[in-house]
């Protein structure tokens, strides 16, 4: 079945068709976000409902949120800024504690966002938000 030439040409196309939506930016729903953010529940005392509430107010669950605030730019669901935490073209001497390019926070893969949010909690605490 898979051996025929006609089938072979479809497979890559099918794979691309499946993968392509998987790496778009995303508007999460509350339920989806609750699932994805489970690793953050209770980290440094901040509960999952507190995260959901905070994220709603700062980015409205939209991973593409990007805002200027007092000369720095904040990226993604967690609104992580380019002054201290990530690097971009605007601030060249960023401390870049999370060692990552800021635009990685605009996609729908939240593992890097969560990694950096945890670092923020370690270094500065919940008051960042």
């Amino acid at each position, binding site marked *: 079945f898979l051996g025929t030439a006609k089938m072979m040409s479809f497979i890559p196309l099918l794979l691309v068709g499946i993968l392509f939506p998987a790496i778009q930016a995303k508007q999460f*729903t*509350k339920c989806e976000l609750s699932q994805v953010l489970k690793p953050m529940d209770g980290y440094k005392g901040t509960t999952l409902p507190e995260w959901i*509430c905070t994220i*709603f*107010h700062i980015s409205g669950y939209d991973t593409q949120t990007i*805002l*200027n*605030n*007092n000369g720095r730019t904040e990226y993604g669901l967690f609104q992580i800024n380019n002054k201290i935490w990530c690097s971009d073209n605007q601030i060249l001497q960023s401390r870049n504690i999370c060692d990552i390019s800021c635009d990685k926070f605009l996609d729908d893969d939240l593992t890097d966002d969560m990694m950096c949010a945890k670092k923020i909690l370690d270094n500065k605490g919940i008051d960042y938000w």
Partner: protein
Amino acid sequence: MKLRESLLGGSAAMPGASLQRACRLLVAVCALHLGVTLVYYLAGRDLSRLPQLVGVSTSLQGGSNGAAAIGQPSGELRPPGAPPPLPRGAPSVPRPGRVSRPDADSRPGPGPARNLTLASVSPSTALSLPACPEESPLLVGPMLIEFNVAVDLKRVAEENPEVKVGGRHTPKDCVSPHKVAIIIPFRNRQEHLKYWLYYLHPILQRQQLDYGIYVINQAGESTFNRAKLLNVGFQEALKDYDYNCFVFSDVDLIPMNDHNAYRCFSQPRHISVAMDKFGFSLPYVQYFGGVSALSKQQFLTINGFPNNYWGWGGEDDDIFNRLAFKGMSISRPNAVVGKCRMIRHSRDKKNEPNPQRFDRIAHTKETMLSDGLNTLAYQVLDVQRYPLYTKITVDIGTPS
């Protein structure tokens, strides 16, 4: 078994018999799947509205003016007596039909020319009218709200002949205790305003309200300030008529059920409680944005709204705080009646999320005394009385 064997043409094992069995099995599985799907589908339907669904179909085929092409994306049929379908064909250029005032040259000051109650019933008739009932008998319930066909405001004015110039309406069969000024903060959203007027005028009339529509247009290009515009609307509307109730509505929010009353209650009223944007529920319990209604007294008690929230967000939370600090609570319709549609649009320029909002709403208790009606300063640049609304263009300044 016998039947099957006869279908197979005898007891001989034909080539493909197993294939036929497999096919039958497949058909059976598919039928089962379809059956289960049908069960779930029916279980999810609101069967209590079945009579309404059946009743409407005949009237639609009957006297409609041929525009039966409107789809049913929300799954709700338009009941009879609802506003006629939107016109098809090329969208016409909006001509709001500017009304030139009789004493035209310079804009008259606050005086007789601004008193819109002149165009009303003669005294003798007014005295003999009964009070309007507590709940209007004209309400239809859930409505179909769509934003895919262009609106012609001239047609809307023709279809709502009882709406007087400036967007004023008084019920002609009864006297309403609800004298409502509907204040809409505005800048560069004419398309949304057209939909708002198209949907809301029939609803407000069915609710038997004594109402007026005020579009408060922020002049200039500096950052948008919704709450300050609402303050202006409150003050300016009162120059026309002794409104006792103020509905503050964003221009892009349309109610889906006319049982959602656009008037005031004994406590401040939140009207847009179940927006499609938030999955038809409250995004958080203290949410007070979108569409709300405060009586004149409730508004004065909190010193009106804050003037210092420039940009998007926070001002509705500040208002919530003000009400809470004055011992008031929020009154709401249930989530079924309170369903609203928001016209989808991209973020406005010059209305970016206000980064100061989180700090500001933490200090409402102190700032509400010195930031509000008592410190409101603005300049009215223009007042236009269109057939369906009054548009007041104001200069509200810039962030200090």
